[in-house]
C-alpha cells in the first residue's frame, strides 16, 4: 500500500513539472513582446532606456531557460507575478477569488449527489419501469443541455415568472451575510449541479446494475435478507466506488471549469478572473490562474486515486498504472 502511494506521488511530480512548462511556454507563444502585451498602446510611449529597465525588472533580458527557472523559483516562494492591469500581486487576487469558486464547486457537487445518487439507485432497482425511464430521460437531457443554456433559461424563468434577478447586485461573501450569499449562489450551483447530477445518475445506475447482477447479491437474497438491507448494505456500498471517483474528478474540474457560469451570474470567482485577464490580455494573471487551477486538478486527482485505493480493496497495489 505504501509503495503504491509513493508510486502515485512520484507519478504526479513530472505532471506538475510539465504543467509549469506548458503554462510558461504557452504565454510566451503569444505574438508580440511581453512589454507591449503588458502595457498595450502605452508601451509606445516608453523610451529605449525605460523599455530596457522594464525588461531587466521582469527578467525578460535573460534566456528562456533562465526565465523559466527564475519564474518557477518565484512560484515556489508564493510569488505568481504582478497583474499590471489590476495593480495587485497575482497570488493575492487568486486567494481572494478562490473561495467563491470553491463554494460554488462544493454546492454544485452536493446538489448533484442529492439528485443524482437516489435517482440512479431507483432507476437501477426499478429497471425499465416508469421511474427508470424518467431518470434516464433526465440524464439524457442533463447531458445534452450545456450549462450556459440552463443558466440563461433559469434567469429567464426567474425574471419573467418570479421577478427575481439572480445575476444582479453586488456579491456578498458567506462570512459577511450567509443568507444573502446563499441566495446569490444557489442558482449558479443549481445550474452546474443539475448538469453534473446527470453524469452521477448514469454512473450510479450503471454501477448498481452491475453489482445487483453479482453472485453475492443472489446469495444475500437467497439467505432471506430483506431487500432494503441487500440494497443498502451490500449493493450500494460497492456501487458507490465509481460514484466517489467521478465526484472527485468532477470536483477538481469544477474548480477551473466554472468560467461561463461565473460570467453569467456575475460571480467574482477564479473563472471570471481568468476571462477578464484574457479580455485585458493580462498575461501574468492568465499564467498564474491557469497554473493554480491545473495544479489543483493534478493534486485532487492524486487524492482521489489514493482515496480510491484505500476504499476499494480490489485494487492491485502492485500495479501502478
Amino acid at each position, binding site marked *: 500500500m505504501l509503495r503504491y502511494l509513493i508510486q502515485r506521488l512520484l507519478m504526479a511530480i513530472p505532471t506538475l513539472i510539465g504543467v509549469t512548462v506548458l503554462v510558461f511556454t504557452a504565454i510566451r507563444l503569444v505574438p508580440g513582446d511581453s512589454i507591449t502585451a503588458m502595457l498595450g498602446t502605452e508601451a509606445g510611449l516608453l523610451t529605449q532606456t525605460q523599455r530596457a529597465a522594464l525588461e531587466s525588472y521582469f527578467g525578460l533580458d535573460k534566456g528562456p531557460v533562465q526565465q523559466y527557472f527564475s519564474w518557477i523559483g518565484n512560484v515556489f516562494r508564493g510569488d505568481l507575478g504582478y497583474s499590471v492591469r489590476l495593480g495587485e500581486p497575482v497570488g493575492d487576487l487568486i486567494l481572494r477569488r478562490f473561495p467563491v469558486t470553491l463554494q460554488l464547486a462544493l454546492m454544485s457537487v452536493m446538489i448533484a449527489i442529492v439528485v443524482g445518487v437516489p435517482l440512479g439507485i431507483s432507476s437501477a432497482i426499478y429497471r425499465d419501469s416508469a421511474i427508470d425511464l424518467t431518470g434516464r430521460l433526465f440524464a439524457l437531457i442533463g447531458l445534452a443541455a450545456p450549462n450556459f443554456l440552463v443558466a440563461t433559461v433559469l434567469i429567464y424563468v426567474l425574471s419573467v415568472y418570479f421577478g427575481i434577478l439572480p445575476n444582479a447586485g453586488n456579491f456578498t461573501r458567506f462570512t459577511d451575510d450567509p443568507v444573502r450569499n446563499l441566495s446569490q449562489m444557489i442558482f449558479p450551483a443549481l445550474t452546474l449541479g443539475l448538469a453534473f447530477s446527470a453524469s452521477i445518475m448514469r454512473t450510479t445506475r*450503471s454501477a448498481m446494475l452491475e453489482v445487483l447482477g453479482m453472485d453475492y447479491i443472489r446469495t444475500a437474497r437467497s439467505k432471506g435478507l430483506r431487500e432494503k438491507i441487500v440494497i443498502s448494505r451490500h449493493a450500494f456500498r460497492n456501487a458507490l466506488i465509481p460514484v466517489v471517483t467521478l465526484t472527485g474528478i468532477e470536483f477538481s474540474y469544477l474548480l477551473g471549469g466554472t468560467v461561463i457560469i461565473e460570467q453569467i451570474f456575475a460571480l467574482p470567482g477564479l473563472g471570471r478572473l481568468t476571462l477578464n485577464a484574457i479580455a485585458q490580455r493580462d498575461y501574468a494573471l492568465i499564467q498564474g490562474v491557469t497554473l493554480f487551477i491545473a495544479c489543483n486538478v493534478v493534486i485532487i486527482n492524486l487524492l482521489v486515486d489514493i482515496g480510491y485505493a484505500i476504499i476499494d480493496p480490489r485494487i492491485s497495489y502492485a500495479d501502478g498504472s
Partner: protein
Amino acid sequence: MLTAVESLPVTGKPPSWRRTARRLLSTPSGLIGAIIVSLYIAIAACGAVGLTPHPPLAQKPIDRLQGPSSEYWMGTDILGRDVASRVIKGGTNSLYVVVLSVSLATFAGTLIGITAGFAGGFVDNIAMRIMDIFFAFPAILLALLVVTILGSGINNTVVAIAIVYTPIFARVARGPVLSLKETEFVQAANCIGMRSWRVLLRHILPNTIPPIIVQVSLALSWALLTEAGLSFLGLGTPPPEPSWGQMLSESTGIAEIAPWLLFFPGMAIMVSVLGFNLLGDSLRDVLDPRMRGSR
C-alpha cells in the same frame, strides 16, 4: 466531464460495419440519434449552399424583434436578422468546427496512442505523461488558453478544440494496442518476420477502430458544446457570422421580450448534442455487448 471510452473487448477480428450499422439502427436510441444527426448535417449543408429563407447576415431594422411568423419562422433578432436563417448558417459553422476539430484530434491522438502503445517502454511513458499534462486542464480553460495564444476566429477554434481532445484519443487508441501486442495472432505475425509497421497497419490498427469510432461520436457532442461555449464567451466564431452559442449570448437581457432568441438556438444545441450522445451510446452498446443496458 470528459472521459475516454472503456477499452472494447479485443477479438482480433474487426466487426463487420454493415452488420454494426444494421444493429445500430435496430435500437430506438440508435435510430433517433442517427435521424437527429442526419437532420443536423442536412441543415448545415443547406446553410453551406445558401439555402436559407433570408440572407443570414442581412439586417432589416424595420422588422427587428418580430415574433415567429410565416415570413420569419423563428422570428427576428435585435438587428432585424432572420433567426431561422442564422440558426441554419450557425449549424454550418458549428459542423465545420466540430468535424474539422474532431478529425484533427482523432488523427493526432490515434497516431500518438498507437505509436506509444506499440513502442512501449520509454516512448510510451513520455507520451502518456505529456497527455496527463493536458488532462490537468479543464477543457474550457485549455481551449481559452489556446484561443488566447492564437487569437479568436473560426479556424483557431478548430485548433483549440483539437488540442483539447487529442489526449483522449491517444488514451483510447493506446489501450487496445497494449492488449493486441500480447495476442497470439500479432505474436505469430512477428514470428514470421513481418515488419513492425506492417503488423501495426495490418493487424493492430483495424482492431483499434471500434473504440475510436465510439469516441468520435461522443467527442463530436463535446466539441459542439465547447464551440458553443467559446462562442457564447465571444471567443469562438467571430460576428457577424452566426453561431449558436453567440446567438444564445445575444439573447441575454432581451429574452424577456423576445424568448424565441433563447429558444431556437438553445434547442438547436441541445437536440444536436442529444443526437450525437444517443448515437455514441448506441454504438458503444453495439460494439461492446458488456455495456448493453447499463446506461
